[in-house]
């Protein structure tokens, strides 16, 4: 609860005056950003509920099906994403300290790691696709219901996650341009900070996907 009352009540602000006084509310923006992150969490949350229910129903089939996934690729990708989270916070830290070039370098590294993640994901998916395992595919369709469910969940959840990685990369690109042009800087770095928050969320989701799919045997 707030007890002190502000001083603005005493000073009349005319519309014209407001127009010239640009006002920022960074805590407000951050509140909005976190609320957005909650919606993302709950979006994946729905899929986690589906996963939990079918894991409960088809425990053995899930274990069987998980053998088909490439654990090495899954773990490698985890390392890639965790490292990209590190480079992301370092980029924010560098910009806070007004080291623009360094910040851009770390951001570039994050972007590169995201690419790396997607490339590995691509090989993984195409290997599955090669064996006829993809949503609507012949082989997947012929599997026992529980195993089919596992792979459909795998594609839905990693697919939705992959889309988030792509979006994150797009945002990083535009932020890099805005850092270069000086619109995002040491005195106004919130945009980069929020990109970071989003990116860590993508990482956070993946941290849960790893044991749910790759380490389920």
């Amino acid at each position, binding site marked *: 609860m707030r007890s002190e009352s502000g001083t603005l009540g005493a000073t009349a602000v005319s519309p*014209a005056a407001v127009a010239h006084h640009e006002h920022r509310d960074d805590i407000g923006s951050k509140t909005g950003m976190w609320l957005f992150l909650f919606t993302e969490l709950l*979006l994946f949350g729905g899929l986690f509920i589906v996963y939990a229910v079918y894991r409960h129903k088809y425990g053995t089939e899930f274990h069987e099906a998980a053998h088909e996934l490439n654990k090495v690729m899954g773990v490698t990708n985890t390392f890639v994403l965790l490292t990209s989270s590190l480079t992301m916070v370092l980029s924010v830290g560098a910009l806070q300290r007004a080291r623009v070039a360094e910040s851009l370098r770390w951001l570039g590294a994050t972007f590169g790691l995201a690419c790396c993640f997607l490339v590995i994901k691509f090989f993984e998916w195409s290997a599955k696709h090669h064996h006829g395992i993809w949503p609507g595919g012949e082989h997947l369709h012929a599997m026992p*219901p529980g195993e089919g469910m596992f792979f459909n969940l795998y594609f839905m959840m990693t697919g939705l996650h992959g889309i988030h990685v792509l979006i994150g990369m797009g945002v990083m690109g535009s932020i890099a341009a805005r850092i270069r042009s000086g619109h995002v800087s040491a005195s106004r770095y919130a945009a980069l900070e929020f990109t970071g928050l989003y990116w860590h969320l993508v990482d956070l989701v993946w941290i849960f996907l790893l044991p749910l799919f790759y380490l389920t045997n």
Partner: protein
Amino acid sequence: MAESKTGPAWTGNYLQDYGSRRGLMAWLTTTDHKRIGLMYAAAMFTFFAVAVLLGLLIRLELMNPGMQYVTPRVYNSLFTLHGVIMIFLFIVPGIPAIFGNIMLPLQLGADDVSFPKLNLASWYVYIAGAILALMSLFVGGGVPDTGWTFYAPYALRSGSNVSLAVFAAFVLGFSSIMTGMNFITTIHRLRAPGMGFFRMPLFCWGLYATSWIQVIATPVVGITLLLVIMERSLGIGFFDPARGGDPVLYQHLFWIYSHPVVYVMILPAMGVISEILPTFAGRTVFGYKAIALSSMAIAIVGYMVWGHHMFTVGMSDTARRVFSILTFLVAIPTGIKVFNWMATLYKGSIRIEPPLLWAVGFIFLFSIGGLTGLVNGALSTDIHVHDTAFVVGHFHYTMFGGAGVGLFAAMHYWWPKVFGRMYNRKRAIWAWGLFMVGFNLLYFPMLVMGIMGMPRRYADYLPQFHTPHLIATIGSWVMVSGIIVMLWNLIRAIRHGAPAPANPWEGTTLEWQTTSPPPQLNFAVPPSVTTGPYDHTALRAAAAKEAR
């Protein structure tokens, strides 16, 4: 947003154009929360009119047994459309999108919401969703016929255009989320100096609780609807028993959102009632904290009761018991509100004006809705009335008698503020009377025939249900004539009404401290707050001074 409000020392009100753009363009590009609210109103009442018409057609077909005017397939599409439009396009955005947008910043003493551009974007997303919903009527396999609930596996098998309708609902969800995010941030950040959380008007509390539900619950239905689309296009089988999926899981996911969302519809309406009663009783509200916190309690407990929609689907008996007891818990904070409202009238100095009549009408109709809900909460009785006309009656008593009437009450309360004009009082009271009579004629027979065993979503029925159906159909005509008189009276007032003073009802919240209609930046002098929201002392002193 500040740029669009330039203009050297502008003194007009927000309804007049300002800046470089004029006319329609000025509206379509505005970030003014009041204009956005009115844009929502225009779009939503268009859809409301369509859905009312569909409802009239449903009632007409059901007036007599046998099929008279439409085929069963068309009938099924009629109730699906009626539900989809009323729920997703009218009553979910409902009060928050119109009066939340217009009144929240005014009541907080702010000059706009936290994210004005996002606010405009959410209107466009709403329109995009609406266009998609309309497209689903004309392209592809025909008008959806699944009911607004899109239950699997019927929704997976139906040859009609389910995917597009589902996608429309998905898109509309984003609009809802954006509005919710905006309101939460606004409430946290933009309250006037001196306005702590517990000095906030109760309408803002209602919106705060609502916004949290929108933000937390909507994504769940978003992903569920996406899965339905994936299921229809790729056959992923999550809800298809033929592929090992579980149709009950769809219902769980659907109601995890769709039960809390009935509180999205009702909480802002309860907020409106909590504004109107103290104003027309001329006294402070009874039990401010109880009303405010019961909104939060309803929002939280509301998350835990979705299973009562599923008492006959074959859930485990344990789950049925758990959800039954939780359902009864949600009745308690609702009761607290009603009792506090009644106590607010006690020893007041009451003026009977149209907004108060609508508020009292709300309490009456919503009480019937809430009390019939107890029958649905108790296990053995719900088994009998589940999926019958009783549920339809109960639902309309809560949602239309509650959320809808709450919206009408808000319109009569804030119309003078929004448009700066008074409507005809006598005509407004007539419209209210017609509506109340018609409403009960329409929906009470549904309760009766539901108990008799009339299932819902029936295009045709057995002869024993004829009398209640006939009464309900006649009631629908009376009720709609009430709505028409009401809307005509209000719309006429925009041009022909007498100019409204800044505070026609002697209200105490901040929106009454600015002019009617308000200027673009809401307040010539930004207000600060030193008392609770319903403190009538200053108004009484002023009146006494005038009397002397």
